[in-house]
C-alpha cells in the first residue's frame, strides 16, 4: 500500500448510513483520494435522493464521488467492484453486540475481509463529528508482510495527523523455549525473553531505518501472549484509535474453527482495524 488513491465504501440504507458516509468522505479528503460508493440492490429515485442529500450535508469532497449500483450477492458485488475500480482501501462498518461495548464483524463483512484483494478498514464507531485519531498500534511480528504494514501505518498516521505509533511485537510462549517450573528455569526464561526482545527490537528498528518518522513519537513494545489476539487486547488496554495488522497469508475453514491471528480480531474488534494488503 504505497498510497491511497481510491476508497470504496459499501452503501446500505441503514441508520448508520450518515456516520458511515461522513467518515468515508473525511477519510477520502485526508488521503486526497477519490471515493467510490457501491450499493448492492436496486437503483431507485428515493435512495438516490437520500444519498445526494447526505453528500450535500457532509464536508465538501475534493474529488466527486462515484456511485455503483448493482444487484447480486453482496460479497461478490463488493469484491468485484474493488477489483474493477482498482480500489486501494475498502471501508466496512462493524456491528455492536446488544447492550455491550463490544464490536464484531458481521458475516458478510467478514467474508469480504478474508477475500478482499485490497486493504480493508473496519470501523467500529463511525461518527458524524470527527473524532481525532491519537494513537496507532501496529503489529511488528516477524513476517514478510510486516515491513509493508509498518510503512502503511506511517502513511496513515501522516494522513490522519496522528502523532503516536506503537509497534507491538508479539512474542509467543513457544519461542521462549524454557518452561517455567522453578526459580532456576524462571531465571533462564527471563534471560531468553530479554534476548528475544532485543532481537525483535533490532529487527523492527531495521525496518524503521527506512521510514521517515519525523514528528511522530514511536514506541516499540513487546508483549507476551497469543499471536493475533493479544495485540487486540493491548490496543484495548492502551485505548488505541487504530490497529494496523498484516493480512493473513491464507485462511481455510480450519482457521475459523481454531481461530488465530486475524480471526480473533474479527470476532471482537478492540478498536478500528486496518488490514494491510
Amino acid at each position, binding site marked *: 500500500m504505497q498510497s491511497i488513491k481510491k476508497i470504496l465504501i459499501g452503501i446500505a440504507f441503514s441508520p448508520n448510513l450518515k456516520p458511515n458516509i461522513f467518515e468515508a468522505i473525511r477519510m477520502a479528503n485526508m488521503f486526497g483520494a477519490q471515493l467510490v460508493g457501491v450499493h448492492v440492490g436496486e437503483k431507485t429515485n428515493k435512495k438516490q435522493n437520500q444519498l445526494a442529500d447526505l453528500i450535500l450535508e457532509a464536508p465538501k469532497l475534493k474529488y466527486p464521488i462515484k456511485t455503483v449500483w448493482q444487484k447480486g450477492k453482496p460479497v461478490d458485488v463488493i469484491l468485484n467492484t474493488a477489483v474493477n475500480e482498482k480500489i486501494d482501501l475498502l471501508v466496512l462498518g462493524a456491528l455492536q453486540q446488544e447492550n455491550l461495548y463490544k464490536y464484531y464483524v458481521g458475516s458478510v463483512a467478514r467474508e469480504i475481509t478474508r477475500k478482499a484483494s485490497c486493504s480493508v478498514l473496519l470501523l467500529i464507531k463511525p461518527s458524524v463529528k470527527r473524532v481525532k485519531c491519537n494513537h496507532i498500534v501496529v503489529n511488528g511480528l516477524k513476517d514478510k508482510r510486516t515491513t509493508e504494514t509498518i510503512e502503511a501505518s506511517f502513511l496513515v498516521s501522516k494522513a490522519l495527523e496522528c502523532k503516536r505509533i506503537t509497534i507491538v511485537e508479539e512474542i509467543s510462549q513457544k519461542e521462549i523455549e524454557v518452561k517455567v517450573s*522453578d526459580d532456576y528455569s*524462571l531465571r533462564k526464561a527471563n534471560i531468553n525473553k530479554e534476548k528475544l526482545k532485543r532481537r525483535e527490537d533490532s529487527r523492527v528498528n531495521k525496518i524503521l531505518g527506512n521510514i521517515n518518522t519525523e514528528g511522530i513519537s514511536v514506541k516499540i513494545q513487546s508483549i*507476551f*501472549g*497469543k499471536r493475533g489476539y493479544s495485540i487486540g487486547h493491548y490496543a484495548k488496554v492502551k485505548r488505541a484509535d487504530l490497529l494496523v495488522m498484516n493480512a493473513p497469508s491464507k485462511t481455510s475453514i480450519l482457521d475459523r474453527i481454531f481461530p488465530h491471528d486475524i480471526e480473533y480480531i474479527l470476532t471482537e474488534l478492540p478498536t478500528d482495524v486496518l488490514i494491510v494488503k
Partner: protein
Amino acid sequence: MKKKSAINTFIGELPKNIFSGFVVSLVALPLGLGLALASGAPPISGIIAAIVGGLVCSILGGSNVTITGPGNGLVVVILSAITILGEGDMYEGYLFTLAAIVFSGILMFILGILRLGSLSNFFPSSAIQGMLAAIGIGILAKQIHVMFGNLGAKGSILELLYFIPEDFMIFIQTNDQSVFYAGSVGVVSLLIMIFYSKIRNKYFQLVPAPMWIVLVSIGMYYYFEMFSINNYPISDELMINLPDKIFGEFPQPNFSKIIDYEFISAVIAITLIASIESLLSIKAVDKLDPEKRRSNINKDIRSLGIATVISGFLGGLNVVTVIARSSVNVNNRGSNRSANFFHALFLVAFIVLFSNELKHIPLSALAAILVYTGYKLASPENIKKTFQIGSEQLIIFLVTLFVTILTNLISGILVGILTTFIIHIIINKNILLFVRNLLKPNVLMFEEDDKYFISVDNFSSFLNYSKLKSKLDQIPETEDAIIDFSMCDFIDHTVMENINSYSESFKRKGGHFEVIGLDGYKSGSKHPFALRKFVIGKPKDKNLTITKRQKSLQNIGDELRWDYKAEYKDRIEELTDFGYFRTRQINKISNTLSSKQCTLFDIEFSEGELIAKQNVKATMMYIELKKLIPQFTLDREGIFEYIIHFAGFKDIDIDHHPDFSKRFYLSGKDENKIREFFTDEIILFFESNKYYHIESNEKGLLILGNERLAGVKEIKALADFGQRLKQIIS
C-alpha cells in the same frame, strides 16, 4: 567454587535435617500404620509407602522441604477399591488394588511429563473443599467404630454415621473386657490428639502426639505384662497385625483384572486424588519454606509417580506429598530433601529394631488418630469459612460433599464442577459470556516502566484460570506486578483465592503484587475471596465490599494523614471546568483521598456518545490553589492526546530553557502570563520529575498519569508529586 560451597552448606545443614527427619518419622510411623489400616490394607503397606517415598522422592523430587508417604485423602478411595475389587475377600482385593496403585503411579509419571501439574487448577476451590470434607467424613464414619472397639461395623457412610450413637452405648455398657479396654485406649488417644496442642510443656511437646499414643499404648501392654496380676485385656484381633519377616516376602500385585471397568475407575480415582492431594500440599508447603524457594511441581509429580510404582510392587500404598508431616519437618528446621530421606531411614530402623514392640499397639489407638484427621478435614470450621466467602460457595461445597458421600469421588467432583458452572451462569444471567469467551486467550502481559502489567479480559474463573496462572508464574516474585481486572466482567472465588496467594508470595519475596480494577464490583460477601461481578452504573453501597486496593488506599491515607473515603460521589464540581472534561462525561467518582487542598480520586467517565461510547476508569489528582494562575496545559512533547480542546493554540516555548521546550508541550490562551508563571524553579521541577499531564483552570490543577487506574505505588508517587508542585506554586 560455587559447587563446593553448595556441598559445604549441605553438609553443614545435615545435622538439623537428620534431627528433623527423626521427628517426622515419629509422626509418620503411627500415621502410616493407621492410614493403611483405615484403607483396609495390611498396616505395613503404609510404612512401605513412606519408606519408598522418602528414599525415591528425596533423590528425584523437585521440591525442598516436603515429606512424602501415604496420604489421608486416599484412604476412602483405596478402601472402596479393595472392597469392590476383592468382592468380599479383603486380601485378594488388596492385591488387585496394588496393581491399580502401580498403574496410577504410571499415570502420575505421565502427567508429570506432560506438565499437567496444573490439572488441579481446573477444579473450583469450593468443590475441592467439599470433596476433602467428604473424605474426612468417610474416614471418621468408619474409624470411630474401630475406636470404640467394634471392628464389625459395615455399610455405607450414612449408615455408619447413623450407628455411631448406638455403638457408643454398646461401648459403655459392654461386659466384654477386651472391647472396653480397647475403646478406652481409643478414647484416651483421641483426647491426647485433641489436647496435645493445648498443653504447653516443653518436654511433653518434644514427642509428637501420635507418638505419645504409641508410647502410652505400648507402655500399657508392658504394665500388664510385668506389674499387673491380670492378663493383658485386649484380645489379639483388636491388636495391630504385623508380619514376622517384614522385608522378607513382599505381596505380589495381581494384574488379572486390569481390563475391568471397576479396576479402571479405581485407577482414575486413585490418580485423581493422589495428584490433587500432592499438588495442594506442594503449594501449601512452598508457602512454609523459610528460604522461599519455588518447587518444580512437574518434577515432583514425576518422582511421586516413580515412587508409587515401586511402592505398589513392594506391597505399599500410593506415595503422595503430605502437608501435616511436611509442616512438622519445617517446624523442626528441615531445610532440604535429605530430611525426607532420613525420615525413611528412621522408619526402616524402627521397623527392624522395634517390630515386636509395635505389635502391641491396639487398633483403636490408631483409629483415634484417624478420627482426629477425618474431623480436621471435615471440621465445621471449614463450612463456616466457606459460608463467609459467599452463600453460593456453600451450595457448591454442600452439593459436592453430599454427592461424594452418596456416590463416589469422581461423580462428586464432576457434579461439583457442574454446579459451580451453573451457579456462575445464574449469577451472571448470561451463558454466552462463558461460551463465547472460553477458548479465547484472555490474558495479556507486558512490561512497562519496569513493571509487569497484566490485563484480563472477558471473564476469569476456574475454567480459564490456567491461562492466567501460566502468565503469573513467569513473573519473578521480586518484581512489581499490576494485574488489572477492569475489563473483566466476572471473577470467581477460585481466581480470587489464587490471586491472593500470589500476592502473599510476592510480599514474602520482596516484590509487589497489586490487583486493580475491582473496586465497585458486586460481590457475594465481604470476604476477600468472594467472587466479583461487574455492575453497570453506580452500585448500591450495601453490596460493596472493600477491596485490598481500597484497604491500601486507606493505609496511604493514614500514613500521609489524608482523609480517605471509599464511597461514590456523582461529581466534584470543580472538575467540570477543566478542558479535559469538556468532551468527557463524568459517571462516578470514588476512592477519594484528600488533604486540605489536594484530592486524589478514581474517576469513571465516558467518551463519545451512543454507539461510540466508551467507559474509562482512571486515577487523577486535583489541587485547589489559593491564588489565580493562568490557564494552560502541559504535556509531554509528542503526545497530543489530551489537548485537543486547546486546538488552535501553539506550543509555547520558554526562553533560555530549550530542553524544557523540547521535552514539554505547553499551551494556553494567555502566552505572556504563562511565560511569567513558569519561573526557573517551576521549570526545574518539571524537568527533574516524572511526566504527568497537567492542566490548570486558573483556580486549580488537574494531574493525571496514564489514563487508567493507578496502583498503590503510583498513587503514592502522584500524591508526592502533587504536594511538592503545590508547595512550589504557592
